[in-house]
């Protein structure tokens, strides 16, 4: 098989890169070993919340200037603000409605009801200006009876800590009772499927309207719209009181919708998405990669002019850690890591962890190296890269999106 570009990894980075390339007229294939981390998404995309030394960031565009040159953002350099805007635009153009500004972090609500800084937030959710803002003074906090991934007590405690008053209710409809026969299946995605039915939505809206008399906002779990934003819009039209959506524990319904949407946009632009397949080996030589092989395609190799490694970090097998090192399994790319294993971890689990900064070593244009030799046509993007701690710095989605678009623009046909 022959493509202009083969992208390994079909999550946020791989899809953003693939969409941009397809739109530029490249013929792309994405090889994705199972579904991506967007299924566990908070519903927001972080750009930069904290510097590595722990300093809080209010304006990411300003703060990136003080990052270490090894940080992926430092390689994007002066074009950081441009690519932040392009990334937001790509999401909007793909039908993923987001709000937020790369000059000013806003705050998102977590599934625990607390607030965290962030960049872009899906239109389902409410963005707050300050960390201690509340969504309303008198909040009706609603759960679907039997849904365990939405802890109303924690959320109410957090809201009340910032001065709101909460009334917790749980709603039961006959349609949900069927789901409850198997408690393990009372999960966000299954509830969302039931709420795609207009009659069920209508029944839910009437229930909420009965209870909403003394409150100024209704807070609901994010169980609306696996495939489109329509169910939430329909619900909001039927409820005069403002409705605010709070994220649930995974799986994330808005995250799944985002993944489906981006994949569809990539496919409609002519891209080929190969789900459930894994890249195994690469055919290399003279500082170039000619082809990769995958489990499913066996002897029929995927040939391309360019390869983009967007295979993610340890969780998605983009990086493999063993007792004596960390390696990248497809190309055997050089990896930045500390050879002294004792330095990998901090005994305190909430402290920054060194291993999270390990990743594929790249040159200033994000090209990978094999045994120290830069590979002319292989780029790495997203969380497989080294030089940042996505969790501590709050920059995972930003690194994925910005490096994806930056690299897509580097490629020449």
């Amino acid at each position, binding site marked *: 098989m022959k493509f202009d570009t083969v992208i390994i990894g079909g999550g946020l980075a791989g899809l953003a890169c693939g969409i941009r390339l397809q739109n530029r007229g490249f013929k792309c294939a994405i090889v994705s070993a199972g579904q991506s981390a967007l299924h566990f998404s908070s519903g927001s995309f972080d750009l930069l919340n904290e510097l590595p030394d722990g300093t809080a960031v209010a304006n990411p565009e300003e703060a990136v200037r003080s990052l270490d040159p090894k940080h992926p953002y430092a390689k994007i350099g002066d074009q950081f603000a441009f690519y932040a805007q392009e990334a937001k635009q790509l999401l909007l153009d793909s039908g993923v409605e987001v709000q937020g500004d790369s000059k000013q972090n806003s705050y998102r609500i977590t599934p625990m009801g607390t607030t965290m800084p962030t960049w872009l937030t899906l239109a389902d959710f409410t963005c707050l200006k300050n960390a201690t803002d509340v969504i309303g003074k008198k909040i009706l906090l609603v759960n679907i009876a039997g849904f365990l991934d939405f802890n109303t007590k924690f959320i109410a405690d957090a809201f009340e800590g910032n001065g709101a008053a909460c009334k917790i209710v749980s709603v039961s409809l006959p349609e949900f009772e069927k789901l409850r026969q198997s408690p393990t299946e009372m999960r966000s995605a299954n509830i969302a499927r039931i709420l795609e039915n207009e009659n069920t939505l209508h029944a839910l809206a009437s229930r909420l309207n009965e209870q909403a008399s003394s409150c100024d906002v209704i807070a609901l779990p994010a169980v609306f719209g696996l495939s489109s934003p329509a169910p939430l819009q329909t619900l909001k039209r039927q409820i005069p009181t403002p409705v605010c959506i709070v994220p649930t524990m995974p799986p994330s319904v808005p995250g799944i919708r985002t993944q489906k949407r981006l994949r569809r946009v990539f496919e409609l632009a002519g891209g080929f998405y190969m789900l*459930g397949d894994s890249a195994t080996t690469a055919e290399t030589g003279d500082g170039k990669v000619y082809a990769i092989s995958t489990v499913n395609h066996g002897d029929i190799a995927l040939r391309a002019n360019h390869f983009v490694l967007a295979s993610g970090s340890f969780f998605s097998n983009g990086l493999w850690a063993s007792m004596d090192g960390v390696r990248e399994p497809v190309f055997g790319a050089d990896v930045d890591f500390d050879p002294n294993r004792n330095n990998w971890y901090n005994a305190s689990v909430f402290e920054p962890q060194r291993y999270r900064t390990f990743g594929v070593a790249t040159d200033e244009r994000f090209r990978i190296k094999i045994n120290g030799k830069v590979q002319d046509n292989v780029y790495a993007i997203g969380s497989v890269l080294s030089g940042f701690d996505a969790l501590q710095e709050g920059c995972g989605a930003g690194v994925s999106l910005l490096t994806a678009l930056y690299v897509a623009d580097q490629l020449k046909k």
Partner: protein
Amino acid sequence: MTMQQYNISENNFEQCIKCTVCTVYCPVVPVNPNYPGPKQAGPDGERLRLKRGEFFDEALKYCLNCKRCEVACPSNVRIGDIIQLARIKYSKSKPSLRDMILANTDIVGSLSSTFAPIVNTTVALKPVKAVMDSVLKIDRHRTFPRYAGQTFVSWFKKEAQAKQDLYLNHVSFFHGCYINYNYPQLGKDMVKVMNALGYGVHLLEKEKCCGVALISNGLINQAKKQAKVNIDSIRKSVTEEKRPVIAASSTCTFTIRDEYPHLLNIENDDVRNSIELATRFIYRLLESGKVKIKYRDAAPVKIAYHTPCHMEKLGWGFYSIELLRHIPNVELVVLDSQCCGIGGTYGFKKENYGTSQGIGASLFRQIEEVDPQFVATDCETCKWQIEMSTPYKVKHPISILAEYIDVEGTINLNK
């Protein structure tokens, strides 16, 4: 060996991190609340079953073995295999007469073909459907696939076999039950296309039903016997006669390649790479420049491609799609990959009919929105389901190729 290596279980069971992504993509969960879902039925339940087999839940029979959970799993857990193996190991329910009839495609097929006109008329009669529904629990809404009066094999032996040795290259053809008993035309199309490309087509020394229906109906010993016959014949074809084996059905191909070693313990390592779908075989020939195809002039046509579940699992939809796109004047719309709901014999069972149609509903809607001239797919049971549930005809990519290929022109091109 290190301690860790001793601890690795089968089917990557220990890789499950309980992320629930499999459940999101299970087609049964949203429509049948009695099914515990792939996470619970698979790795979660397996932890309990490993302790005590009595934790086995008969509701695992609602799994239609589509393997979409495995395709979605980010951790490469063989969830579908864990579920099917648990059914094989622990289920106490005995297959009913109905299950035996549905599963024994070979015996039923050869009897029905012999009496095809009678069988076809009889099973289409309302009173007969009612009896089958109430006595056998085969749902009355189902349209039975028609049986052909002459099987593919008897046609082939009479009309085609003698000419096959004249070709320079050769393949063996695993035709499967559907082509043999129900739809010999697809087999004839296969012979026509392969011959045009310069390949002689041969039957395997012995061919039995691949056994997929036996596996899903719990008739494991019989499935193993048939698998052995097939693998022995395939081995003879590949290693002695040097003929790779091609097939038309994505499910037969998947079963022989992956279910034999994973579920039936029948080793096929030495021949697995030589069993594949004809569309992949032809794609390879075209890509390497070994053959060229000349097409007839034809009016533009809009086709919608449906990816069958086992095709999705094989990851080979690409080949059928690219072959169809290779035909001039074809506008191909690839439908969202999702289960049509039939699940082989699953949807024929009365207790599954509602689930089956519920699963397929959004696919049927999408087909109607696209409004193609016809639908293309590589699976015979998807064809029945889509033809029964929508007004559209369904054709196999090989039949489409046979329709558009210019046989003489292609032979001349490859001289």
